[in-house]
């Protein structure tokens, strides 16, 4: 299993678009930007709805369950911050509640070989510091 203990993850810097996402994650909740005109969820946050160009966007709670949409297994150690964890699985998750909103993360608590397109995953929250908590993923039976 990938050893994450010596990894120094770069810490997200929230901005005016992304602050609500990180505020929710800190409360161990998943909230994504949703268009109030057409109901479309999107991630990462953007200035307008990528479906209907509305600027009426709010963050709404979504359930932290979905499937692995895509993944890669990292072997290259060029990024020294992550070198101690290779090989590790970086995954892209599509949530049940937000089709098309793709969330990057790592597959935790499982061998990296368990990352496969279509596998079910659920969110786990990994605090980085007092301000930032990362939504991460583990295999799920749901």
């Amino acid at each position, binding site marked *: 299993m990938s050893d994450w203990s010596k*990894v*120094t*993850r*770069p*810490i*997200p*810097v*929230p*901005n005016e678009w*992304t602050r609500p996402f990180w505020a929710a994650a800190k409360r161990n909740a998943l909230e994504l930007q949703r268009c109030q005109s057409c109901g479309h969820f*999107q*991630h*990462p946050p*953007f200035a307008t709805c*990528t479906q209907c160009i509305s600027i009426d966007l709010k963050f709404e709670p979504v359930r932290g369950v979905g499937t692995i*949409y*895509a*993944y*890669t*297994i*990292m*072997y*290259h150690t*060029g*990024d020294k*911050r*992550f070198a101690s*964890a290779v*090989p*590790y699985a*970086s*995954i*892209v998750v599509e949530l049940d509640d937000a089709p098309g909103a*793709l*969330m*990057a*993360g*790592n597959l935790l608590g499982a061998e990296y070989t368990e990352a*496969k*397109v*279509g596998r079910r995953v659920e969110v786990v929250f990994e605090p*980085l510091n007092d301000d930032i908590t*990362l939504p*991460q993923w583990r295999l799920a039976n749901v």
Partner: protein
Amino acid sequence: MWENRCKVAISGVGYSKATRSADIPLAAHALEAVRGAVADSGLRMEDIDGLATYPELPATGHAEVDGISVVSVNCMMAMLKLPNLTWHIQVGTTNIGGAVQQATNALLAGVCKYAVVWRAMHNPSGTYQNLPGNMAAGATQFTGPFGFGGPGQGMAVAYTRWLEKNNQTRDKMATLAVTQRKHTQHNPHAYFYGTPLTREDYFASRMVAYPFCLFDCDIPVQGAVAVVLTLADRARDLKPAPAYLAGYGQRLHFETAGRIGSLSSYMEGGSSSAKLTWERSGFTPKDVDVAQIYDGFSASVIYGLESYGFCKEGEALDFIQDGRIELDGDLPLNTFGGSLGTGRIHGLWHIIEGALQASGRAGSRQVKDVNVSFVGASAPIVTGTTFIFVREPY
């Protein structure tokens, strides 16, 4: 069809030596390539009155120093002091293909007569994607914390999606790497000229970012290439046979920053650019005699073949088997070796080869009886552009 079909042509082409390390400033490479292209056309430097490039350094965490790690239009102007210069530009929303398209537009508008486009690529010392620091700002706040460091991983996630959705295996990609390296042996300007690659080498190579092994990734080099563009009427009076531009396109789909892995974004980017190119040129994929498709990472060729319409979605790795992409195959592909053979100089090399094949100047790698020569000059998702060059301007 496009009213300007075949009214502009690529004439001369030029290259610098591609080296692994940056022994001399990048400006010297760019100058060598530009001089080579101008001389190949039989022009004098003072004939050049238009300049265009895309100077970006795709490496992360290295200083952009003009003349050292990038070669901007300003840098080239300062070096050449062209007495008759009337037009120049640097592009942003497309890669180097956009600079070729802008030069085309400038020639058609009559604001210059002989335009030079160059692409110069620096190989910084140390790690190419140098990702220091402990903060992830902007779009990287949603990718950086999870170890998505460079473009290779962004490309790799779409590749796993493609492989597993289509029940395919990465082993089939060996054919692309090996065939392109075979083509490379006909290209003395390529970094891997003189270095063959076997299937065994491919399967034994170290993994970089699964499904990409070492030979799925182009090697960073220091080097430059350049072309001279001019109106077709003028091109006919120059030394080399012209490669007439029958049509071009650019991707019309934009992926929001930080959203990675979406296979449909590659497809929409590529198909939108190709659709314009087919419509403007009047050709279809079936008419194409030879194709150059950007291959900075091998999977780009999959997205290109499928989104441009050469084969159906999910079939690209089967399509490239059984000799189809050999020099005498149904669709000779990346006949100069691709970026996997030349080293990382981006898509101007693909455009050069597209032009050389159309004008019958590709030497020992010349495909027989070429009229329609297709180019996909960068990854379809981000900065994709497509071109068709022809030998016969009608």
